[in-house]
């Protein structure tokens, strides 16, 4: 489904993803607008997490998993690129905060730099500072960047993971239900953050929380049983759904 009035940062074409013989998503065609937030919603098991994990080629790292089809990033097919290179351009935040438990806050954020490009200490300091500020975590950790990452609260850990993803300087940020393990206050902080991040990044967020999708996103895609049912500007989708399935889902008749 094509975008109107927007340039597409990513484009999914005829994407199918499998776990062993079973097909998790089926013939997905979708575009993601540059520097906008796109939400993917749908009941659990609908394939939305699988879809987002195909966008940075993480899906194929699971045992017996593979994907067929194309995903274009600025017109270049991800599946013809080196997967590590893809993941450096497309960052990801996971459902449960997963900071590296063996590293300090500073080392977590600087991990993509230290492991991938080895900049000077000075540049790294700047990048860490910038990422922590972008993730709205700097004020809370500025006195203890050398403390263990696990000493942070759950919400802080998730923002740390966002900072870590941003420090690698991606163009696209994938978020796989980033608030599902967080309390309401931490959740609203992350939502505020998403609104700011789209100034610079293309954000794609999977959520099972429709209110969240409505609050944070510009575009919404609704998936059901591995298929893309409807896609459009968030307002249209929630207020004037074209498909019967979409309507019954957003009005809470199943889920």
């Amino acid at each position: 489904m094509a975008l109107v009035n927007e340039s597409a940062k990513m484009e999914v074409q005829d994407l199918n993803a499998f776990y062993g013989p079973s097909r998790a998503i089926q013939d997905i065609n979708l575009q993601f607008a540059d520097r906008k937030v796109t939400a993917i919603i749908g009941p659990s098991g609908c394939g939305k997490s699988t879809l987002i994990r195909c966008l940075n080629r993480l899906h194929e790292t699971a045992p017996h998993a593979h994907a067929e089809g194309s995903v274009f990033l600025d017109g270049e097919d991800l599946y013809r690129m080196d997967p590590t290179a893809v993941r450096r351009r497309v960052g990801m935040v996971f459902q449960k905060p997963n900071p590296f438990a063996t590293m300090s806050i500073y080392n977590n954020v600087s991990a993509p730099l230290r492991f991938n490009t080895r900049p000077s200490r000075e540049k790294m300091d700047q990048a860490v500072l910038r990422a922590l500020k972008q993730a709205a975590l700097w004020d809370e950790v500025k006195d203890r960047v050398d403390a263990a990452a696990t000493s942070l609260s759950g919400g802080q850990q998730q923002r740390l993971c966002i900072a870590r993803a941003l420090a690698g300087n991606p163009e696209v940020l994938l978020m796989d239900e980033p608030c599902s393990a967080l309390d309401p206050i931490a959740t609203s902080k992350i939502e505020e953050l998403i609104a700011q991040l789209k100034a610079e990044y293309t954000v794609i967020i999977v959520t099972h929380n429709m209110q969240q999708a409505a609050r944070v996103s510009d575009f919404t895609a609704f998936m059901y049983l591995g298929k893309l049912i409807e896609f459009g500007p968030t307002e249209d989708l929630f207020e004037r759904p074209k498909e019967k399935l979409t309507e019954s889902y957003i009005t809470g008749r199943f889920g």
Partner: protein
Amino acid sequence: MKFDLAGRRKIFSHGMTVLSGLAIVVIMVPLVAVVYEVFLLGAPVINGAFFTQQIPYPCTPEPGITCHQGGVLVPLEGSLVLIGLSSLLAVPIGIGAAIFAVEYGGERRSARLIGMVADVLSGVPSIVAGAFALSLFIIYDPTQAFSYLDASIALAVLMVPIVTRTCEEALRTVPHSVREAALALGISRWKMTVRITFVSALPGVITGILLAIARSAGEAAPLLLTLGQGCAHPLQGITAEGCALPLWIFYGATNPYQNWYNLAWGCALLLLGLILILSVLSRFTLDWMARRMRGE
């Protein structure tokens, strides 16, 4: 009548409980007896000279003759050389195979094969490992058949399965989310494995190395076949004949000289202490691993 039967069943049950408790007591008897004997006979020779002097001339005190106690500097150095050399051989191989099995094997048969081979290797009798290392050198270079190098190969055969198994288990306890976090940052596979997954599993890996050292440090049988007779001379290098603490215990036990015998008990105490320390350390690293995996 009925009541009586129930009563007898109860008494029998209590009797069996007492018997099972008694089994513990019986098992503890040799433990206590061995530790007691080693302390009783080993402690008197543990002094400065014990650690710094060479093996003395053989001597048994008689009226008018006092024997020189001497020390076990050479066996002690030899044991350290053997621990170092055999670890150098076994640890990289064991860790490499474990990483391959867990990180690259997936659920393929090759991954399970490594675990199976390690299990089977762990059943190899130590004397067979010694015979194997000896014959390797007989084929390769008979002049080095009795050397620290040869003995280290024998010990490494015993250590590899322990390192592999423990390392495998440690790597498997590292949650998949850690690997995904690293992959999603575009970190290359080998860097992720070495600097993130492996570092996370490090306490468990250290546990494996400590256990393997504890096992090999006390082995005497393979040394009997591979180390030769190097106890009387100072250390001459890894391709020369050598000595080690467990081997000296054997010499002290089987020769009729009082001062050698006394030193053997000293070696036994030293070895017991070393193994106790290693097992306490390995328990500590195991807890460390468990704490780390709970995210503390």
